[in-house]
């Protein structure tokens, strides 16, 4: 953490986005996390993604639980809505927020403890319900806030700082999300913004449950030789399958890739996801194949990163529940009150 506040002034040539804001306008208060924490890079990536998408900050809702990761919403978009909720209960609060106002960009930030231990049940059910949100897990494999115990995502056999090995099988949240209904699943690394920022943009614009598992090293407790979630290990064992570019409908696609490895996916809002396949063996539309690939590579000690699965046309929670298209907070009394005649008819049907 730092005691020196970040000065307000910025580079004289910092670009403005479509709504006249600079990237700096999307920042929050100064981080109190440890120096070098991967979570701060994730926050910076969220800032960059939102600035590049020109999201009006007041159209943004950030929700979190408890833990180092869950502190981070204070450190980005300080002009947006936010709630730092109860441990493991971010999904409930996010569900409520999204149901009440379906027009907000709803982002949940959670950690491996918050989502894979105390909140595993909540995690599973919000994914099942396909709430239209971006669910980010800052995954460092350790309980940083309580000084470095193994978390449920820590790989079996990897050690703590003192060399004691972990005896339990890891929970892979990305696999779980694939299995139970997420229509956008990705994994990335806090130390690779080139990959992470486009994934965040795509996840934000995806309609339905978008889940991103971000390996985010804990410099204080889990960045040593025996760790499989250190900067060095992840860089050495990263298996990048599909990169994306989020392309807004009016923008021209200029990235220079071999056309054979590219695929454009239309999104329901008219924009395009451009996919760059880095591995022939991987198909981003094959949920079961992705699941198998992920598990097999994990057995081999590799970390699969990139976009793992996407279905742009999948139904989301609002489709399933058949809710009204208007946000609930914008419904007027006339919309909400059925009138005496209708009420009589409803009551009659129960007699």
């Amino acid at each position, binding site marked *: 953490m*730092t*005691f*020196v*506040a*970040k*000065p*307000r*002034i*910025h*580079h*004289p*040539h*910092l670009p403005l986005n479509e709504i006249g804001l600079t990237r*700096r306008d999307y920042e929050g208060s100064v981080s109190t996390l*440890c*120096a*070098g*924490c*991967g979570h*701060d*890079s994730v*926050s*910076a990536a969220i800032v960059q993604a939102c600035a590049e998408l020109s999201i009006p900050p007041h159209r943004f809702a950030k929700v979190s639980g408890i833990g180092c990761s869950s502190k981070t919403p204070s450190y980005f978009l300080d002009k947006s809505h936010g709630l730092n909720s109860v441990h493991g209960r971010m999904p409930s609060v996010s569900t409520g927020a999204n149901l009440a106002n379906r027009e907000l960009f709803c982002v949940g930030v959670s950690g491996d403890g918050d989502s894979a231990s105390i909140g595993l049940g909540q995690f599973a059910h919000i994914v099942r319900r396909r709430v239209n949100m971006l669910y980010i897990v800052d995954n460092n494999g350790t309980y940083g806030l309580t000084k470095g115990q193994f978390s449920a995502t820590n790989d079996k056999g990897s050690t703590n700082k003192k060399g004691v090995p972990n005896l339990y099988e890891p929970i892979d949240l990305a696999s779980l999300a694939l299995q139970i209904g997420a229509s956008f699943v990705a994994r990335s690394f*806090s*130390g690779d*913004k080139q990959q992470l920022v486009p994934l965040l943009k795509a996840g934000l614009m995806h309609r339905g449950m978008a889940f991103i598992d971000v390996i985010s*090293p804990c*410099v204080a407790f889990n*960045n040593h030789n025996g760790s499989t979630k250190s*900067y*060095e290990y992840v*860089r050495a064992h990263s298996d990048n399958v599909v990169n994306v570019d989020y392309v807004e409908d009016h923008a021209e696609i200029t990235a220079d890739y071999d056309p054979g490895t590219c695929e454009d996916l239309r999104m329901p809002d008219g924009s395009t996801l451009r996919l760059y396949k880095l591995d022939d063996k991987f198909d981003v539309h094959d949920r079961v194949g992705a699941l198998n690939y992920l598990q097999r590579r994990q057995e081999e000690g590799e970390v699969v990163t990139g976009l793992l699965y996407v279905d742009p046309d999948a139904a989301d929670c609002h489709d399933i529940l058949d809710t009204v298209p208007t946000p609930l907070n914008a419904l007027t009394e006339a919309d909400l009150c059925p009138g005496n005649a209708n009420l009589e008819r409803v009551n009659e049907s129960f007699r």
Partner: protein
Amino acid sequence: MQPTNIFDPNYFHKVVDCQWACPAHTAVPEYIRMIAQGRYTEAYMLNWDSNVFPGILGRTCDRPCEPACRRVRTEEKPVAICRLKRVAADHKGDISAYLPKVPTNKNGKRIALLGAGPASLVVARDLLPFGYTVLMFDRDPVGGGMMRSQIPAFRLPADVLEEEVDLILDMGVECHFGYDIASMKDMLDMDFDAYFVGTGAPRGRDLDLPGRAESAEHISIGIDWLSSVAFGHTTAIEGKVIVMGGGNTAMDCCRTSKRLGAESVSVVVRSAFEVMKASDWEKEDAMSEGIPIINNRPPKQFVHENGKLKGVVFECVKAEQAEDGRLTYVASGDPDVFIEADHVLMAIGQENHCPWIERDIGIVFDKWDCPVLDEVTFQSTNEKVFFGGDSAFGPENIIWAAAHAHEAAISIDLYCRGLDLKDNRPPEGVNLVSTKMGMHEWSYDAEHDPRARLIVPHANKRQALDNIKIEVELGFDLRLAAKEAQRCLNCDVQTVFTDRLCIECDACVDICPMDCISFIENAEEAELRTRLMAPAMNAGQDLYVSGDLPTGRVMVKDEDVCLHCGLCAERCPTNAWDMQTSVVHIPQLGS
């Protein structure tokens, strides 16, 4: 790009924009920190060491440091460096313990200094502690040269001038004042071991226009007139005054005229306002005293009647930008204007002029009548004779004179010791010292202060215009000085990067408020400049490039708008970034 060699003394020196721009390379941020700490005496001595006249320069310097100040690029106005220097001088304590000791046993070498201005005084100060016998010759009855004769008392009070001049003379200079140097040949015949010519640029330019000769009695050369005011020969000027010229001498002439009783004063300049040579603050001060500056009016003729000046006729021109960007002047089509005048002061430039140096004694002059000198050693074609200050390369200012004089003193010493003047010069160097004191503790105040530049209080205008001896600027008081000192960005506290410690966590990139830091694939400089977090468009500022990192990328830092806030080092988990004070060693005699 190749990794940056930060041990090249020039690399970090260049990052300290003010120090780099200063001809004498005064360690500006260091003395501003001392002022912030209330250590005025030490701040004064740090200045005295490099520029020798902190009290004088704190009032009169041309301030090349201020337009260079990083604050101009990050915000708008530079730190008031010059006026902070004055604070150190105004509030210093007893400096005697800090002064160099002059040995009583001399080394047997006798050096003649011609002229008693800033250049000669600095040479004297540099030579005396090493046992040289120094004799100073000047036609004026007292020392100080142009600092005394051309800078009016309302900008530089006599006691401030005398204190700093006497400090040097009292070190043991043998003064021969009131000595009219008529012949360099005679001086050479006195057989000194070396000579230093610091006689300035004493000839004011004149204009040969119709009516000039007939009105001679009512036309004065600016610097000569200022000099006669300084020595009390002129105490009044009557009627309407026109000052011709757009430099600082013109500003001094018009403001002096106003104080000596002129009925009206106007400055008439042949060129446009923006390209006038006078410093901005000098123009502002003149205008705030109610003196109009009339631009784009080249003079045509002096109008006289029976030997009495009536006024001056000026042409009207307008400035046009030529293809090469320079301004050219064409007739505007307006009729000529006549401005009434009883007296004209000509302040249209000055030149060096050494009629007393015979041209057959081995000192070669070029076609502009300047001595042919070695630019490093300041040695003339006569190996015993060295030049410095305005007499070397033409009119500059006090701070350039000090810079020349330090180099000339080194040369004179080497020459007297029979050593090679170039091979044996002391080298520049740089020391880097960490400012890290502990967790989140740095030995400098890293926090960025967004305050705007403070304004120096002025004396009551009516009283100031009544008395030429009342100093117009009052200087910062200690409270204002402490506030202004906080605006300094501490550019000498460097961001030093150790590539083998970096784990590429991006923490520095994320926290940097100015987007100075990027981790990218290496390329040629021109390409790198376009690919950074924020484009590095100021080619005058270097890129700091690391060696290869484990991912194959390099760290590239654009030095241009770095605030030296230390957040990169605060956020770095491995101390790959450290904030280190760079102390640049500028050679002087004895270093």
